[in-house]
């Protein structure tokens, strides 16, 4: 199912620094799709994927609810329908690897290892949130788990991720950077500038285009002259490939292979995952622009439901086991909401605490009605 778009194809593992134009043999292929064949993942791993995907589903449902209850403000973009992509990608990273995402990042924060309560508390704008209530839905950050930011400006995270990879290269570390972005973002200049720089300087960064086929309400075909987005890598002599984003094992296989290749060689790559958005662009978007066909396709491909069925068909889980995971996920999401709701709001006295990291003379600390002198 995976398609590839360059002459040089990363093999799994890797033998030292290989220049990107070298011809190497293909990595292992993984059978994915309709036939429920798993390729080597242990039952525990598969169950854990299901657990994480279900947690994201339940968490996002509670986030939507919190938004309609006005507990959550601002914009709120959900990962509903992208759970397989999120979990497949995050399972390919070490905790010490770095992740940069766009604004649709709650699921990534959970799957990178941040406690659900802290993620929900950020949505609630509380001090116990990932960004102490300063960021909100679009701007989560956690040094310990390697989430180096969700970013609200389309494309803004791409040069930053490239720079983080530059720092790894500068210091000789073995971390890899993953930079998540949406399909619409492949048309912004920062994407092209950064892919060029990453390829030129051989930086260990995996750019992941999460193609949910809609940039807000604009289809990929309407916004991208080359609608097979993974082929954009060719222009930078970078490896690119596309994978079924509804298939968690396929996503994980591709992402793990590219991440480990980058770790071994420093070579960047572009991975495109294709999935669907189950809901609107954000919580408040009723998606009136969307055809019934598109909605039906998204529902039919629901990655959580299809993965659940595969696990049961293949004997990895039984109905009771699946129900128990779902019960626990609901309990975890509910506990996250309770934690958030019980957490304190930031005190107004902290308003000027984070303008500058190095204190500076004459830094303004006036409130709107205060006189200048």
């Amino acid at each position, binding site marked *: 199912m995976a398609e590839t778009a360059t002459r040089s194809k990363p093999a799994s593992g890797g033998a030292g620094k290989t220049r990107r134009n070298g011809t190497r043999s293909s990595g292992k292929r993984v059978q994915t799709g309709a036939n429920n064949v798993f390729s080597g993942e242990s039952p525990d791993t598969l169950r854990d994927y299901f657990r994480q995907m279900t947690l994201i589903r339940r968490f996002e449902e509670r986030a939507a609810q919190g938004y309609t209850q006005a507990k959550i403000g601002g914009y709120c973009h959900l990962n509903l329908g992208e759970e397989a992509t999120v979990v497949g990608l995050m399972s390919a990273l070490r905790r010490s690897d770095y992740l*940069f995402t766009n604004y649709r990042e709650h699921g990534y924060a959970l799957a990178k290892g941040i406690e659900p309560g802290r993620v929900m508390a950020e949505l609630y704008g509380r001090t116990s949130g990932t960004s102490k209530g300063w960021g909100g839905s679009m701007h989560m950050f956690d040094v310990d788990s390697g989430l180096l930011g969700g970013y609200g400006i389309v494309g803004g995270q791409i040069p*930053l991720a490239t*720079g983080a990879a530059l720092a790894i290269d500068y210091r000789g570390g073995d971390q890899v950077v993953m930079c998540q972005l949406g399909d619409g973002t492949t048309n912004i200049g920062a994407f092209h500038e950064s892919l060029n720089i990453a390829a030129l300087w051989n930086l260990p960064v995996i750019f992941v285009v999460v193609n949910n086929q809609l940039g807000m309400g604009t289809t990929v075909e309407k916004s991208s002259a080359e609608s097979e987005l993974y082929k954009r890598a060719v222009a930078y002599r970078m490896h690119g490939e596309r994978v079924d984003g509804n298939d968690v094992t396929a996503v994980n296989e591709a992402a793990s292979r590219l991440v480990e290749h980058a770790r071994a060689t420093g070579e960047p790559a572009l991975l495109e995952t294709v999935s669907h958005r189950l809901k609107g662009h954000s919580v408040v978007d009723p998606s009136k622009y969307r055809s019934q066909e598109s909605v039906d396709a998204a529902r039919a491909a629901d990655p959580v439901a299809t993965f659940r069925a595969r696990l049961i068909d293949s004997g990895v889980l039984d109905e009771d086991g699946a129900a128990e995971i779902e019960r626990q996920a609901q309990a975890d999401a509910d506990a996250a909401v309770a934690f958030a709701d019980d957490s304190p709001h930031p005190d107004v006295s902290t308003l000027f605490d984070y303008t*500058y990291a*190095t204190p500076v003379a*004459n830094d303004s600390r006036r409130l709107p009605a205060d006189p200048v002198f």
Partner: protein
Amino acid sequence: MAVITYRQALHDTLREEMLADEDVFLIGEEIGVFEGSYKITAGLLDEFGEKRVRDTPIAEEGFIGAAVGAAMQGLRPVAELMTINFSLIALDQIVNHAAKIYGMFGGQCSVPMVMRTPGGGGQQLGATHSQNIELYYAFVPGLKVVAPSTPADAKALLRASIADNDPVLFLENLALYNTKGEVPETVEPAEIGKAAVSRPGNDITIIGYSRMATVAHQVADKLEDEEGISAEVVDLRSLRPLDRETLVESVRKTNCAVIAEDDWLTYGIGAEIAASISDGAFDSLDAPVRRVAAAEVPLPYAKPLERAALPSAESLTTAVHETLEAVGRRR
């Protein structure tokens, strides 16, 4: 004391900071093999190698953003933007990212980077290559903006900027690179956010920064020599934060002020200074605060037009004379 150019002061400081700290590296267009458009980085590629003097593609958003990302990892990139005009291409990374990352994530990650860039007109470079748009950055909380006018200040402020854990826009000026000044053997880092009374006086306060601070000194010296007028010069040095106390204190003493700025008048840096004087020295003012600023046109190429549009010693002198006349201290 050694007398060196502003360019040499910048070059020497970059070199010294790179020798002192492995985490300091340079990144920008044409800074290595070409040695910098204005030769600030001459010789540094040979001395430090490609890892620490990194030539970039023509991709301001890409390389400034990469510098921000590297700074988030604790490196100390000093990026060179060939001129401030080209910084507009990187505006998203400077304003929406470098300036926001520390606050937006609740103080978890600082961005210790410097963006060096020259502004300034007067070189017949036309409308797009002659702008003074430091205001765009001075407007933004989260950024620090410094604008040294002398070689000694260039050194002291660049040292401070590199040591600082926040993103600093370090404003240079095309007309200052060849100017000379005394620089002590050892220069301590300056305190960002502090203006300097660089020339004490009693009759009038002239407030400037970057090139216009040097013009203010020329004018003040001439007024003293030829007319016995004692002008005090306040060199802002830092545009964000703005040291209102120092400039207001000067105006409380002299009771009148002229602001000298290379940028456009309307909404410009001088407007903020004038408002600050109104806030802090209203009762001391004997005349309206006067601003000498660039004519509000896209700067033309032709020399007579360009000359007419830009502030100069002559235009500043006129404004000082008229202000002193208004307060009755000059015939």
